[in-house]
């Protein structure tokens, strides 16, 4: 593995992202609540460019205590998803997992912040 400096941490705004290609390796880096997450830009469904899709709030089914429905609401915890632009599979930014079937998940890439810079750990054979 080799650490690659990608950009300054301030270059990726809150709820923002940057997708980069390093050699043949494509990675999306996301900032949610001041924490950075990175995933390979390959959708586990059919290899679409998942990280280049829309970032959307997680929807929830609003069910009351008496089990009546409010319909759909934004997730009260403020969770955000990466949406693959090919067919709409959604992946939680913080876990990389599909909200319904968490066996379906984006492949994480180690990411770290050092001295205000963002680094990715990338397998050297891929770049």
């Amino acid at each position, binding site marked *: 593995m080799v650490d690659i400096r990608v950009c300054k941490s301030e270059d990726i705004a809150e709820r923002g992202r940057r*997708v980069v*290609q390093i050699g043949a390796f494509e990675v999306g880096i996301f900032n949610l609540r001041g924490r950075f997450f990175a995933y*390979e830009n390959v959708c586990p469904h*059919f*290899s679409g460019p998942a990280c*280049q899709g829309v970032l959307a709030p997680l929807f929830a089914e609003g069910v009351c205590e008496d089990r009546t429905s409010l319909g759909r609401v934004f997730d009260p915890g403020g969770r955000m998803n990466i949406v693959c632009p090919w067919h709409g599979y959604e992946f939680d930014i913080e876990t990389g997992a599909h909200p319904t079937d968490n066996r379906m998940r984006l492949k994480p890439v180690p990411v770290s912040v050092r001295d205000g810079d963002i680094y990715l750990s990338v397998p050297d054979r891929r*770049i």
Partner: protein
Amino acid sequence: MDAKGPDIRELPPITNATDTRDYLGAAAKQALMHDDYEIIVDMDAHLQEKGFWPEVMSYLENDVLRYTADNMMNVAATPLINTQPGLTFQALSGRIPHQHGQGAEPLDATSGVHRFAQIVQRCIDTLGVDYQIIFPTNMLHLGMNPMEGVEVYLARAYCRWLTERVLPEDPRILGLIYLPLNSVEECYRLVNQYAHNPQMVGFTICSVRNTPIHDNSYMKLFAMIEETGKPLVFHAGPHWDDPSFSQLNRFISMHALSFVHYNLIHMTNWIINALPERFPKMKVVWVESGLAWVPFLMQRLDHEVMMRQSEAPGLKKLPSDYMRDMYYSSQPLERSDMVLTKATFERMHAETQLMYASDWPHWDFDTPSTISTLPFLSDQGKRNILGLNAAKVFNIPLKRMRPRARDVLANRTPFAPGDTHAVSRSSPEFVKAGVKAGVTV
């Protein structure tokens, strides 16, 4: 990587302005898997009428309708079409930018090539297909249009626009003659006018309609079609206004059921009324209902026919046997349970009866790799489904028309042999992934 470190390239977000060749770039990498196949035919891709409607309207052979459409254009994107713009949920609230066509995609204004032909060319090169058969999108609802005659005039205008403006641009773009079943006389006229066009490779009935397909008034039309040797293609569609579907409160529910519903009805009428016996040479194709409905209907009709022979006395074999004589498009291929998918393929004789379709640019499109990654299919079966079956059904010449996948990639994106997408179909990585997930490369 040199001493300075690797080059880092930023990849922009994907929007409806993204070049189709970039949007589908991963498909070009997947195309390496089947690059040696003789022919690949995408038998169902779509025109998004919105961007081209003024042009199509200019072909309307009715002064009043043309005047009406012209004056409605500033408030409605596709005047005269009976879709409900406020219920356009296909793009998942903006999550799937390509759904409505790459409306803002920059095209080459200096090439002289029609804009729609340019979009199709980019798509077929990147998907790695030799031919693409184009269907309309919004026009799929015309069978339910309350205005008498609109379907007839739009069918004429569409066929003229397609044959005069688009098909002459590229022999790889193919079309179908739209049959406005609301007027059988007009269907005769369109068959006579376009059946000889080699790029109009069949006839389509948009299935969303409450029209009994076995009605005697259509028998002369079916005889004419059978005579041409070109197939009759039923294309499914959604319809939320149906009284049963109006109980469904979310688009997903309506979409899942209604795309199957109309083909279930037409297929049932087609078989129970013994149309396969009356038109034994007719090639009949069922499009865009997925495949899960096929074994369901086979078993259901076989079960009933054995008990109620007197109500289907024209049949000389079981409904499932007739269904196995017909043809189907693959998209949207249900792959979440590979055991069921495999059983479906076996029951319907998919290796000879199934044809690959992308449905691009719609949200549930399939790339050719949906077929080439199926773990249970033989190599010959994949070749048949991806192209050879369609070449036979649509009388398409067996000639490679697509560029080499490697050339497509070289022209568009930096490509390295170690790229994760670029696995060959025999590599252990590919086989493992395909078998485990049943879905991916």
